[in-house]
């Protein structure tokens, strides 16, 4: 589904991302972990053609993302709050995204109705602008907006941050269902190793822009990841 080849991104000589080859099959739930500055958001931005790769390319469903826009109809994403339009209400925002993705109001209503639990009564029908919602509620709205229009690829950057524990658990269930039952390819990044191992079948660890680990999730993955990041701490202390 998504194939990355010889991809690199550098800013004035400093390489921030360098991936030789990475292939994500259709329907996989894919997790990206790494410390700050590891290149997670850079990779997602490249995937969405928001920045231009220095070398190499990403191919999504045999579309080269920085050459054609054909990937847009089947890809949706929520990277950060700047994906929201502050002066719209959540409903208006959903309808707007729906319009862009060829869904009418009824389709959008039907979809958002499924997320009543997830919204916890704080999003729909409140007559509030998105800019007036709390960070967590903004995130909920953004994540659900990314599910509108039956996308085949969903990209979520740090979806668990800022959410309350109940919502985190619900979100994990939603993401699992999407990948397992509907064959959607899901890419998430997170700092929370536990959440990622819960949700993702496969986890890739980025470090200073390089892929250092590529793991199939199994019961020992969490331990392995924790060990990896703890040892990283030890080495960085030695460096100091």
């Amino acid at each position, binding site marked *: 589904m998504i194939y990355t080849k010889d991809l690199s991104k550098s800013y004035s000589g400093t390489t921030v991302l360098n991936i030789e080859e990475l292939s994500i099959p259709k329907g996989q739930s894919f997790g990206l972990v790494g410390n700050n500055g590891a290149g997670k958001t850079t990779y997602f931005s490249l995937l*969405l*053609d*928001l*920045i*231009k790769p220095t070398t190499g390319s990403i191919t999504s469903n045999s579309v080269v993302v920085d050459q054609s826009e054909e990937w*847009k*109809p089947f*890809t949706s*994403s929520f*990277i950060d709050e*700047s*994906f*929201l*339009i*502050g*002066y*719209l*209400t959540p409903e*208006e925002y959903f309808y*707007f*995204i729906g*319009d*862009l*993705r*060829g869904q009418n109001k009824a389709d959008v209503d039907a979809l958002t109705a499924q997320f009543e639990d997830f919204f916890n009564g704080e999003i729909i029908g409140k*007559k*509030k*602008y998105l800019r*007036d919602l*709390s960070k967590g509620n903004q995130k909920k709205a953004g994540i659900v907006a990314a599910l509108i*229009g039956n996308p085949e690829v969903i990209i979520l950057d740090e979806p668990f941050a800022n959410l309350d524990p109940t919502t985190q658990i619900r979100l994990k269930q939603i993401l699992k269902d999407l990948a397992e039952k509907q064959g959607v390819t899901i890419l998430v990044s997170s700092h929370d190793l536990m959440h990622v191992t819960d949700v993702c079948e496969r986890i890739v660890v980025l470090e200073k822009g390089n892929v250092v680990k590529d793991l199939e999730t199994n019961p020992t993955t969490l331990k392995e990841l924790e060990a990896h990041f703890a040892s990283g701490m030890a080495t960085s202390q030695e460096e100091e």
Partner: protein
Amino acid sequence: MIKHFLNLEWKQYFRSSYWQKSIALNILLVFFALYFVVMFLGLGFGLLFILKKAFPEQDAFVVANGFMFYWIIGDLLMRFFLQKLPVMSVKPLLTTPIKRSTIVNFVLGKSALSFFNFLPLFAIIPFSIMLIRDGYSTSMILTWMLTMIIIVLIINFLNFIIEAFSAETELSFLPVIAVVGTLFGLDYFNVLPMKTLVGDGLMYIANNPIFILIPFAILAVFYVYNFKILKDKLFLDSSLKSKVTEVKAADLSWTNRFGDIAPFMQLDLKLIWRNKRTKSMAMLLVIGVLYGLFFYPQPMYREMEFMFAFIGIFSTGFFLINFGQFIPAWDSGYYKMLMSQNIKYEQYLRSKFILMVMSVVILFVLGIPYVYFGWKILIAHFAAAIYNIGVNSHVILWGGSFNRKKIDLDKKAAFNYQGTGAVQWLIGIPLMLVPMGLFALINWLIAFEAAVAMLIILGILGIVFHKKLMGFITQKYLDSKYKMIDAFSQDN
């Protein structure tokens, strides 16, 4: 403590990307400031002679004081639009061991050092010197000077009180208009002769220095009131408590007739109506309609036919220019999202185009009464409207592809330079000067009718080649996509 604050202020000013990026704009502002300083100096030194000439049989000092009321009103109005509330990013300071009152006093003290408080001094001090040289008693004039300085500060703090009220109302101009209107009305309808009251008061204080305590007391009251307002705001309550502003949703289904661009048009209309900056811009439309009234009542301008084209382009294109010059920066807050969505750039731009065309038509229709000043004016305005639709709309969209500055929608519009770059200055040349110059040239060489025809033909050419032009403009936007995304995600 003050030392720390000053240090922070300094860094905030010189490290802001706004300062670093728009040096040209800053230089321009400095020139403006210098210009005003020179004007005021001239006024200060020249006023005595002017008054002596204009009112030979009256005492110049008394006459000057008689006009002080108008100066106070004018200053208040000017400050409301130009002077910014003193701000300081206090959030990081709230948890540090600094007394809240220290912060407030610093912010208020800082405002006393504003350029707007120094500017009158450039007139007051020379005027005082001239008065003393003219033989007025030194002690009297010095008292007067001190009183004037206190009054300047009173206006300074009164303005902040007015601004604090206007921040809470929907129509931000209302409080200042109410205050100034009341003051002026009291005088004009002789309810309370403010003009003589202020003049006599100033004279009285100058002669009896002890009464300087009165303006001083007023200043103290205003300061304390400001202190109270600001201190109340120094809690995070205002940002933590959920706002209760209910959404007023208008029915925008009429836009559906525009087909595939309807979602964007609805978005644009909501953008204009729901954000402070765009909303006050929309209010400025009134100025666009009334713009001709600055010129046409004077016979002098009615002789100058080339002015018709200029006024026509400006008044029918007022929205086009104000809205268009910041495309696509209006959407800078969520530009990343738009770019990752399944949108056709051409639709996005066409929505803005249609909005601008509609505004030109509406403004032209509202301007039809100008026919009162002569049918030639109406015809010139019509030609200008066609030119705006056919040519300027495309030019400004094209110029937008060079926009690299983010806009914060929640700030008010008048004299807000955020998002202004070289583009906004340069775009004025093809937009206004070229059609005006061409019009003037043909009007002079051939005839008025030929000049009008030229504008109309150019406009129609633009309309005919609309599809082609849009294709070209769209490509321009696509080419600068990455640069725009990068620029819009940076804070100024």
